[in-house]
């Protein structure tokens, strides 16, 4: 090796630091371009996908227009297609999931980031919760069918017999394959996302804030609810949105437990249907171009829904941040 003879402190006075030629410079430039093109390719692929989906959906968009979103019929024979029951099912099941996953996820994040448990207890808890994310959704679906539903059915029948007068629980002899079960299964699936990100957010909050609050005489709960959670709020909203995105798009596990009935019912104990579930069930056996079109139109709607949720989250964080100042 020739380099070893060079002294580290010998400075080459002839070095030209503003040089735009030579191997290093072109490598530098090349790398910049490679990185840029990767970024652009990602965006390009996204637009390309939208374009392809739009083209496939065109026969349905052309025939039904925006009325598709508000129609409730779905009949391959007629043909009549409407998206409302699927949109309803997707939004409600995800909402149930978020309602359950946010408090539970935050609780896990607090327990594993605060210091009221010894480290050898809380690290395994954090690790195990994150492990849920690695379970394939089909397995969670099967577990839902064979383990969760038999446990939930007596509870849901109890809900009917005592609270049946509330439209929310007015379903006699529920089979267990319903909106509530789907929401609970989804909540379990998105829990690791919610818990892990919130935990990371809480861990990076500066020590001084916590010490300051404690020094001013606030209790642990006051510190958590008045200082820690507000400080990490935008990160926690981000975690909830990421989790919601996963819930909206989840396919297999939901298909297996939701009952797949495209009917809008106020009762959470009735079967329902979601957009990803109908895509999974009907795409392979689609009868004709219009049927495929209606299904891809649903896919476009799901895409827009997810986009709206994300925009809503960004706006929410900004508005709340402004109010704080």
């Amino acid at each position, binding site marked *: 090796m020739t380099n070893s003879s060079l002294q580290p402190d010998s400075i080459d006075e002839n070095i030209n630091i503003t040089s735009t030629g030579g191997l290093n410079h072109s490598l530098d430039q090349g790398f910049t371009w490679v990185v840029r093109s990767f970024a652009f390719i990602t965006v390009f692929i996204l637009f390309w996908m939208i374009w392809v989906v739009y083209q496939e959906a065109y026969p349905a968009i052309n025939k039904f227009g925006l009325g598709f979103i508000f129609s409730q019929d779905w009949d391959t024979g007629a043909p009549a297609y409407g998206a409302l029951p699927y949109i309803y099912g997707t939004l409600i099941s995800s909402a149930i999931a978020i309602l359950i996953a946010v408090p539970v996820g935050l609780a896990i994040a607090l327990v594993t980031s605060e210091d009221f448990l010894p480290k050898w207890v809380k690290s395994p808890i954090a690790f195990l919760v994150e492990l849920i994310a690695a379970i394939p959704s089909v397995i969670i679906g099967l577990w839902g069918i064979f383990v969760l539903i038999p446990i939930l059915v007596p509870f849901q029948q109890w809900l009917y017999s005592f609270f049946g007068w509330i439209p929310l629980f007015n379903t006699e002899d529920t*089979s267990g394959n319903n909106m509530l079960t789907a929401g609970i299964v989804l909540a379990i699936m998105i829990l690791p996302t919610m818990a892990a990100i919130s935990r990371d957010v809480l861990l990076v909050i500066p020590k001084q804030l916590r010490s300051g609050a404690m020094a001013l005489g606030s209790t642990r709960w006051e510190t958590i609810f008045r200082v820690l959670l507000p400080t990490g709020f935008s990160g926690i909203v981000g975690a909830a949105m990421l989790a919601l995105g996963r819930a909206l798009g989840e396919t297999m596990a939901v298909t297996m437990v939701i009952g797949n009935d495209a009917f809008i019912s106020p009762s959470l104990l009735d079967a329902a249907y979601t957009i990803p579930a109908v895509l999974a*069930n009907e795409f392979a056996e689609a009868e004709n171009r219009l049927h495929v079109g209606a299904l891809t139109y649903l896919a476009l709607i799901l895409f827009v829904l997810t986009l709206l949720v994300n925009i809503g989250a960004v706006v929410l964080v900004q508005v709340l941040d402004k109010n704080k100042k």
Partner: protein
Amino acid sequence: MKFSATVFNRVVTSSVVAAAVVFGPIFTAVAQAESLKGAGASFPAPLYQKYAREVRKKHPGLKVNYQACGSSCGIRQTKKGTVDFGGSDAAMSDRDINSVKRGVILVPTAGGAVSVVYNLPGVNKLKLSRTTLPLIFAGRITRWNDSRIKKDNPGVKLPNRRITPVVRADGSGTTFIFTNHLSTISRYFKGRVGTSKKPRWPLRRVLKGKGNAGVANLVRRTSGGIGYVNHSFAVKNKIKSAMVQNRSKQFVAPSLSAANRALASVKFPANYRVFVGDSTRGYPIVGLTWMMVYKRYSSPAKAKAVKKWINWVMTDGQKHNGSLQYTKIPASVRKRVLRDMKKVK
């Protein structure tokens, strides 16, 4: 190292030669083995996969690959010509057949019964008459202690429970066979639902499962549920099947022999397309499944392979039908198919 053009050329040439020497024999071997690609109905998929394994005992070079993508998918792929043979439980319509320039022969390969499966703890021999069954699936009878179900089952204690119908979420040949039977025996059902692979069920509080497995699962776990699956699935999953009435008003439980009795009386037309719908003997909810082969193939070798395959399925292959709970095709029909297969080029 200098990387000159000559070095590059030499490297490329020598690797191409080496690759040709190494892989050449493999390619010719592949060319010698005749491989057939099929796709379609999932109902006979276990049977076709068994055929594909067993056929190699007689024709070791014949490789058949069948993909269960669904009846509609089988018809679509046959029309497009992306497969060597298709599979479907709903057969191709004349319009579909005419749109294929190479011509299509429908080869009936097996038949099967569709069981009406139910889940009612304590009720082991449920009977459903020709009036009751269609009305349940048309949404007119909604409770198990309905007087009409009671009349079919004298002496049986039926619970005061809601009926939860379970149907298919995907388009399916099984649904076609089932709705075809119900439409044949009930005018009300024909008007409300009709015969279709994926009808619009006028049912409230229905559950939908994907595939036979999905329906079987939902029925097995839903107390008060009733659905329909292939007989083989009901047997495999040990779900209780209801006895239904045939045209001579006998209550018959689904079984292989009862389905065979029903199919034996079926008359096959020249194009082999027949939807049974009803039967005076045996179990009335039965259907057939077909392989769709072309009349002309792109190469004589391919045509020869297809002939070998179908001829085997129509002779030795039929012996395997029973072990998987499928019915056999009557011998006279098989003879006719073998005669038709001689015309395939």
